[in-house]
């Protein structure tokens, strides 16, 4: 891996920024160069949230991801907006319980994850984001438990340490798909 560019996008409240932060922290704990840039514009207040995450071996240039290697689309507007931007050969992870249409591109690998439904059924309705994270880690072959644990330790503050277990469960559920 030289550099990987992630674009996380969805509704405000789906944990888009948190999922991005988890990936950035995971890169950091593994000694990579990382950047995390949220959208902070009016669209954030109107409902859509997105964030750019870059993880690489060399220093990060522009922190803005305009051509993602990996797109995480957690709602339809996000897929509509960013599908074309994904690099050929890239990956799209989408929440198929909220996005009914299929991806039009045939030069990318698509992972449809009914994350919101699974999160509800498993008693952690707010963690669809981390189910998708689990699936991403599995597909990138990065789901080693100690790396996940290290990143969780960083991204969840001591005050909210009781949330670690449920995040861990959501990630393993995603990784089992």
């Amino acid at each position, binding site marked *: 891996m030289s550099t990987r560019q992630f674009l996380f996008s969805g509704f405000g409240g789906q944990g888009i920024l948190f999922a991005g932060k988890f990936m950035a922290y995971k890169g950091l704990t593994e000694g990579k*160069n990382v950047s995390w840039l*949220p959208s902070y514009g009016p669209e954030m207040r109107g409902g859509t949230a997105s964030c750019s995450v870059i993880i690489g071996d060399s220093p990060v240039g522009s922190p803005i991801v305009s051509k993602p290697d990996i797109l995480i689309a957690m709602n339809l507007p996000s897929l509509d907006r960013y599908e074309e931007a994904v690099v050929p050969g890239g990956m799209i992870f989408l929440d198929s319980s909220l996005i009914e249409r299929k991806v039009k591109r045939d030069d990318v690998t698509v992972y449809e994850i009914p994350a919101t439904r699974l999160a509800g059924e498993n008693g952690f309705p707010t963690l669809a984001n981390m189910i998708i994270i689990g699936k991403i880690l599995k597909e990138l072959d990065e789901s080693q438990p100690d790396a996940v644990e290290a990143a969780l330790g960083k991204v969840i503050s001591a005050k909210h340490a009781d949330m670690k277990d449920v995040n861990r469960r959501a990630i393993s559920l995603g990784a089992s798909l």
Partner: protein
Amino acid sequence: MADKVLMKGNEAIAEAAIIAGCRHYFGYPITPQTEIAAYMAKKMPKIGGTFLQAESEIAAINMVYGVASAGRRVMTSSSSPGISLKSEGLSYLAGADLPALVVNVQRGGPGLGGIQPSQSDYFQATRGGGHGDYRMIVLAPSSVQEMAELTVKGFELADKYRMTSMILADGTMGQMMEPVSLDLEVAPAPEKPWATTGTKMKRKHNIINSLFLTPDELERYNFERYDRYKKIEESEALYEEYLTDDAEICIAAFGIASRVSRNAIDEARKIGIKVGMIRPVTLWPFPSAPFKKALKTVKTFISVELSMGQMIEDVRLSTDCKVPVILCNRVGGVIPSPDEVFECIKNAAENGGVE
């Protein structure tokens, strides 16, 4: 890497200020820099410092004037429209020779503009938004690490030269998170015998003032101040060079524009274009020397800016307009993509700088 933490640029500025010994912060919220105030609100009460949300930007900058007069490290922060409001106070700080740190996390303008990143306050920062002959030391970070380091430097230079330092960042620098080491070296603040710290009945009282009704006296202060500015120009300019050794095309860019440009340069190098970059870290004093030196190989300069072309004037002044200087820009909160900068480089390579 173990001791690095992920922080937003805004938070890194706030934490670095505390590390630098700043215990007094006055501000008024405005996107995209509000995290600085939020961080200070949380931290200052715990360490015996002052956090005060003023009734306006004008009030905040005058509170800064007060604390600076008392000889303590002090800061305020805002974003473009708020800095315009503070400009009267910036002029007064200059007129009274007071050290302070002011942060501008720029957004698009003019007017209320937008809330997305911009670099269009370059003139305001380097030429002075306030009235009168004065300068500020202007520091332009291009990473979260530099947001922290230049904050410390800003306080040190402000104290050293008794003037305002400004951190000129932008919305992306403020909002992005990157790993940052907060193991920062801080030189102890110098003695400030001029400050209003109480005479203890042992000396004549100090007066902090910017009103001088005798022209000769006011002229003398202006001349003295510009002698100091000259020393700063000679000794404090900072910059970073990237692949300039053999560069025939040289980009000038600071802050976020330099990050985007770096990607474009790497792409252009892959197709054999000899392109490099000079990244000014201080915008005032402007680092003219590397630009003069670059004239040995450079045939065209490209100023990449998030403005309608402001720093480009300093690039032209530094090079006496000996070679073309082209503008590559987006404004209004739009950030040029690496592809756009790459196209600009390619055009310059093919057309020799003819716009």
